[in-house]
């Protein structure tokens, strides 16, 4: 059931910046998952990925509404689609096109582990809209991770699949770590008791969870790529997400 549009409490612009980075990550991750519709390795995964994509897009829409202070479709669309590439704050992990299924599966698992950790920082938020959304999102992420864990449990028993997944993880390590790129507005967001800790504080546990499955990894000593720098694949992604909208920007759906 679609909720009626409503006005939301105005936010400190710094907090808006912080939430915008999360919203952009969710938007691009959801979009990447939707692009597996019809081409995933088997039908059940095809549908599961589409369903998980809808959850991530739902999180993005809810965050955009909080950032904009208005939950109408027009406002959310303007923020989600109407910015130039330089205006986005997504990490490069969610902007990269990954045509190999093993790369996508590793991204899905690692992203959702980090995503759940980020929502956990918001569950006790002083802003009720954000806290309620975090509780709802965490409930969904529990099942996303369970879905991915079940797939990995099965695939890692197969030597060929195991080798491909380990290779995908190794290949993507610097890209995966871009999710921990600093987020503008974090200091103000913590000072306002909207987030309980810096997202960087979740990074070690995330690395430990990955290593518990795949063994020791050579984590990059370099700082993650900044959220102001777009991945080379972003321009094409941005064009795809706007393709239908630009046919008739004033159309009412």
């Amino acid at each position, binding site marked *: 059931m679609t909720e009626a549009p409503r006005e939301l409490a105005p936010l400190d612009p710094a907090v808006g910046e912080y939430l915008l980075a999360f919203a952009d990550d969710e938007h691009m991750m959801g979009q990447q998952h939707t692009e597996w519709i019809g081409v995933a390795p*088997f*039908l*059940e*995964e095809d*549908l*599961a990925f589409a*369903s*998980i994509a*809808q959850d991530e897009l739902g999180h993005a829409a809810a965050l955009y509404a909080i950032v904009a202070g208005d939950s109408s479709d027009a406002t959310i669309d303007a923020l989600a689609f109407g910015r130039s590439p330089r205006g986005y704050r997504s990490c490069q992990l969610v902007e990269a096109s990954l045509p190999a299924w093993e790369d996508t599966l590793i991204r899905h698992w690692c992203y959702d582990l980090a995503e759940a950790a980020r929502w956990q920082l918001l569950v006790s938020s002083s802003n009720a809209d954000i806290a309620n959304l975090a509780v709802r999102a965490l409930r969904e992420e529990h*099942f996303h991770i*369970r*879905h991915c864990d*079940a*797939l990995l*449990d*099965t695939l890692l028993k197969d030597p060929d699949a195991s080798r491909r997944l380990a290779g995908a993880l190794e290949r993507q390590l610097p890209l995966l770590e871009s999710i921990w790129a600093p987020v503008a507005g974090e200091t103000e967001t913590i000072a306002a008791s909207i987030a309980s800790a810096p997202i960087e504080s979740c990074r070690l546990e995330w690395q430990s969870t990955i290593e518990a499955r795949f063994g020791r990894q050579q984590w990059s000593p370099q700082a993650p790529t900044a959220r102001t720098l777009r991945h080379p694949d972003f321009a094409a992604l941005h064009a795809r997400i706007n393709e239908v909208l630009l046919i008739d920007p004033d159309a009412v759906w």
Partner: protein
Amino acid sequence: MTIYEVFLKPAGRQEFRHAGALDAATDELALVSARECYVRRGEGDHLWVVRRDNIIDAGSEFVAPNADKPHRHHSGEAVAARRRSLREQALTEADDDD
């Protein structure tokens, strides 16, 4: 891969109903796939997945002969007519007693 049959129970005092089937490598994958494929709009408040191999299938020949037994069907009309007749008769007798 194993074929699983999926059953959902809609909310309230409804019975489990067959929703479809899926392929999965393990029971856990069958559950999580069924959740994403069949209940993503809250179509049920309970979910069963059953390995198709665990269903005892009688086969169509087992029940086919029972499809040709018209004497086991009734519309209830004869019983309803007799009850109506007895009711009317009882009313008439009551009027006569007055």
